[in-house]
């Protein structure tokens, strides 16, 4: 794919990331291991063996699952890694998120940041993956994102389980005076069958902790797994059906105050003037403080209860100023259109696209323009964080996806260093890429204003919708030259969108500006397993002023729609069945072909459909997993009904089929919701939508039936949390286009059709 010459001309994001790392955590030698953070917080009689396992004298086994549990089931899967090798069941252990620590860096999340598709296994692609993985480690970036947690934990946490078992057996061997090889475990005990001797893990823990295990142990073969590969009961389910206080909003501390924020609805601007008198007069209001941060400007309202804070926020009167960016949807569209006329950077450029179109007969060329709007995340749990400043230390409790950054940036906002900040990660009521550090920065500033007392800061839904880090609005212009056989010989895709990486940097490390292309602009278009002789995908960074961020599946969320919508148009132009076209273009990638065949078979693709119904197909390779989806729609008197969705996903190795099925359905519904009716529009530079009445999602009565197949053909493990989203958007658009006999190229589809 990409030649070394082309790579050399590109500036890797790694440069900016490494600089950010230096600022954030100080430079660390890559080879230097991080310590075990559990050593600092052991209870009386508790022993730890590595950053992932603690065992108490009373035989309580605690596994640290240091990734944000936002519904994706990661606490269960990471615990299962340890349990599998330790030889106990999930019922025999306790799972905690654990402390914030560089030791829990995510080495996988950034691995695919280079300009190489998942299936490129060339030497240079491998070198780039190693380099990016190293960045994750050097940064000590404890982060949950990029559908990376299971892949990241797969080796490390099984090794942790194996090492713990090794030292427990070694301690028992010494105590019983027998060789380790004669020992086995039964539940949380080590047993010597021949002599009948046994000791619990708890009894052995202190001795075992003093034994150093080998650096690496041989792990179980897949065929010998007892937990992995099988659906587990989730470790967080009981808490979630009993209303247990596990979320950020549920934090309760002695002497706690409550609060909310009212940020300038014009992004980035300082209010020109403000009258706080009415707000301050609300009964229960304690203090209103200005918030001037890299995320924006506004006010923090501290009160004796949340309701008082909400009322006061509504009564703040201000001249919010004028937007220095495209202020309405027409201006956004114009900015993107203008950008499409400029030069971008290519993350895929094969053959000679310009030559292919230069002499193309007009009747052999098709062209189309696609567009998508900004989108909010709308996590069910609104943005929130709790903070306390006391004795020069800051303590934070928050649902967040990046606790090491939370500590660094929230501390910095009030003049404290990371060493004086402690962040606790609660369960997240949805994340989807939204949970950045604005919430904790605001809470820290507010807590400092009432030093000594904790403040729980909960945003109203209106603030949440109007101050998101949005999925970028984007526009694409595509053309294809058709060959004699109905297949495309040349494909040229130009995509204009704001840079997610650039926007995140502006909020977190504004003094640094990332150089080079941002792969998120074209991911889902430049990295797909299609073979076309002349194939070019260019991404054009277009700053629209609006803060943009990681929204479930990131660039794939719109590139899936762009690429797969246009593929359907190519099929129509060439007189080919859409699935047949994909099969022919994917012959170089057997994993992709098997997914296409599987889902087409499940959906009985190609069989005659009753009048008033239609199916649409789409395929997207994202986060290392190959996913094909078919959506079936029906015209009804009250609008289009999404009847059924079939999904086939090759994830390489399926760790927990029950959780994977749930994530595929979840991702698809997330995508369908957006394609059916979601849009964040601007007026006067301010977000128009404000709550679920005008930014709604699919409801139970709209939910289709699902049929899922999980495949394990590819030799590398892929992610799961985001992969269901991109093809769902595209397959729905393709189905509705087939149903209506006209092509829909703009989202949401509700602009042109009605859904039941």
């Amino acid at each position, binding site marked *: 794919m990409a030649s070394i010459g082309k790579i050399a001309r590109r500036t890797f994001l790694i440069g900016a990331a490494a600089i950010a790392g230096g600022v954030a955590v100080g430079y660390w030698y890559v080879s230097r291991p991080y310590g075990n953070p559990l050593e600092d917080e052991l209870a009386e009689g508790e022993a730890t063996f590595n950053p992932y396992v603690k065992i108490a004298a009373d035989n309580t086994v605690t596994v640290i699952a240091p990734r944000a549990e*936002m519904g994706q*089931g990661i606490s269960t899967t990471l615990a299962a890694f340890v349990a599998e090798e330790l030889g106990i069941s999930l019922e025999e252990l306790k799972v905690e998120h654990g402390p914030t620590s560089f030791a829990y860096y995510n080495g996988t999340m950034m691995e695919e940041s280079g300009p190489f598709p998942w299936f490129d296994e060339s030497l240079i692609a491998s070198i780039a993956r190693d380099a990016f993985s190293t960045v994750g480690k050097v940064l000590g970036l404890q982060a949950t994102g990029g559908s990376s947690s299971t892949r990241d934990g797969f080796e490390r946490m099984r090794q942790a389980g194996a090492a713990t078992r090794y030292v427990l057996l070694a301690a028992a061997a010494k105590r019983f005076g027998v060789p380790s090889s004669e020992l086995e475990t039964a539940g949380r005990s080590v047993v010597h069958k021949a002599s009948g001797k046994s000791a619990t893990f708890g009894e052995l823990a202190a001795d075992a902790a003093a034994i150093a295990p080998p650096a690496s142990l041989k792990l179980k073969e897949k065929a010998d797994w007892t937990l992995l590969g099988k*659906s587990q009961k989730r470790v967080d389910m009981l808490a979630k059906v009993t209303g247990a*206080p596990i979320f950020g909003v549920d934090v309760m501390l002695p002497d706690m105050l409550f609060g909310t924020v009212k940020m300038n609805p014009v992004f980035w601007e300082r209010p020109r003037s403000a009258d706080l008198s009415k707000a301050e007069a609300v009964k229960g209001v304690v203090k209103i403080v200005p918030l001037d941060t890299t995320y924006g400007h506004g006010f923090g309202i501290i009160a004796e209860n*949340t309701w008082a804070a909400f009322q006061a926020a509504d009564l703040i009167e201000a001249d919010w100023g004028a937007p220095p960016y495209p202020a309405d949807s027409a201006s956004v569209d114009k900015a993107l259109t203008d950008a499409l006329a400029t030069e971008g950077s290519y993350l895929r450029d094969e053959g000679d696209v310009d030559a292919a179109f230069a002499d193309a007969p007009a009747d052999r060329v098709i062209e189309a323009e696609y567009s998508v709007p900004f989108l909010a995340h709308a*996590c069910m749990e609104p943005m929130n964080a709790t903070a306390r400043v006391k004795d020069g230390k800051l303590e934070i409790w928050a649902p967040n996806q990046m606790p090491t950054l939370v500590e660094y940036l929230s501390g910095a906002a009030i003049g404290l260093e990371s060493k004086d900040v402690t962040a606790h990660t609660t369960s997240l*009521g949805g994340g989807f890429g939204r949970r950045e550090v604005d919430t904790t920065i605001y809470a820290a500033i507010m807590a400092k204003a009432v030093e000594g007392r904790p403040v729980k800061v909960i945003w109203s839904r209106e603030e949440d919708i109007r101050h998101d880090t949005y999925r970028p609005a984007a526009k694409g212009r595509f053309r294809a030259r058709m060959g004699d056989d109905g297949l495309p010989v040349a494909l040229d895709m130009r995509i204009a969108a704001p840079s997610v990486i650039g926007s995140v940097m502006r909020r977190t490390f504004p003094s640094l500006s990332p150089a080079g292309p941002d792969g998120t602009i074209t991911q889902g278009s430049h990295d797909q397993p299609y073979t076309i002789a002349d194939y070019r995908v260019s991404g054009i960074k277009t700053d629209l002023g609006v803060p943009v961020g990681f929204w479930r599946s990131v660039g794939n969320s719109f590139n899936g729609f762009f690429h797969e919508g246009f593929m359907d148009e190519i099929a129509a132009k060439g007189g080919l069945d859409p699935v047949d076209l994909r099969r022919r273009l994917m012959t170089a990638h057997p994993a992709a072909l098997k997914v296409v065949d599987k889902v087409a078979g499940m959906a009985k693709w190609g069989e005659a459909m009753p009048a008033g119904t239609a199916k649409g197909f789409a395929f997207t390779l994202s986060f290392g997993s190959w996913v094909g989806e078919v959506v079936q729609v029906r015209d009804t008197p009250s609008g289009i009904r999404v009847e059924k969705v079939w999904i086939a996903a090759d994830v390489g190795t399926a760790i927990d089929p029950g959780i994977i099925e749930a994530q595929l359905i979840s991702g698809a519904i997330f995508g369908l919701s957006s394609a059916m009716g979601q849009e964040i529009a601007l007026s006067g530079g301010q977000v128009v939508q404000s709550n679920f009445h005008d930014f709604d999602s699919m409801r*139970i009565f709209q939910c289709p039936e699902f049929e899922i197949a999980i495949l394990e053909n590819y030799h590398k493990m892929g992610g799961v949390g985001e992969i269901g989203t991109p093809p769902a958007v595209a397959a729905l658009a393709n189905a509705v286009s087939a149903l209506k006999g006209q092509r829909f190229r703009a989202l949401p589809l509700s602009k042109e059709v009605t859904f039941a």
Partner: protein
Amino acid sequence: MRLTVDGKDIEINADPDMPLLWALRDLAGVTGPKFGCGIAACGACTVVIDGMTVRSCSLPVGQVTGAITTIEGLAVDGKLHPVQQAWLDEQVAQCGYCQAGQIMSAYALLEEIDDPTDEDIDNAMGGNLCRCGTYPRIRSAIKKAATLKLARA
């Protein structure tokens, strides 16, 4: 002001205009019902009063008459309510944030209809939003709960 919440009498000092949700969460420390929207559009705050589902974010606490049942009061003597058991069996929850409201709506539905049809479920549950898309498992769990409830009765 006196409220009966999950069988317990609670004394709180609240502005009568304060929504029941915030009185429960901030003043009474009952955090089971969740804040999602504040405009009765998502159902995360659902509680049951006299057999009826109520969006507690939009009901002034001063207007509450009757005993309030929240997610925290469904289990009896440590034994999960059939709806909660069905949710556990079907592994419904993902992030879990909306589930307190979902479970309360399902509980009220099954108090009224022993064996709800898909249409009954659509009608009763349409006001409860789930961003994780757990709807297929919610539907299965409600049907399972109906069976469990019948078996226990």
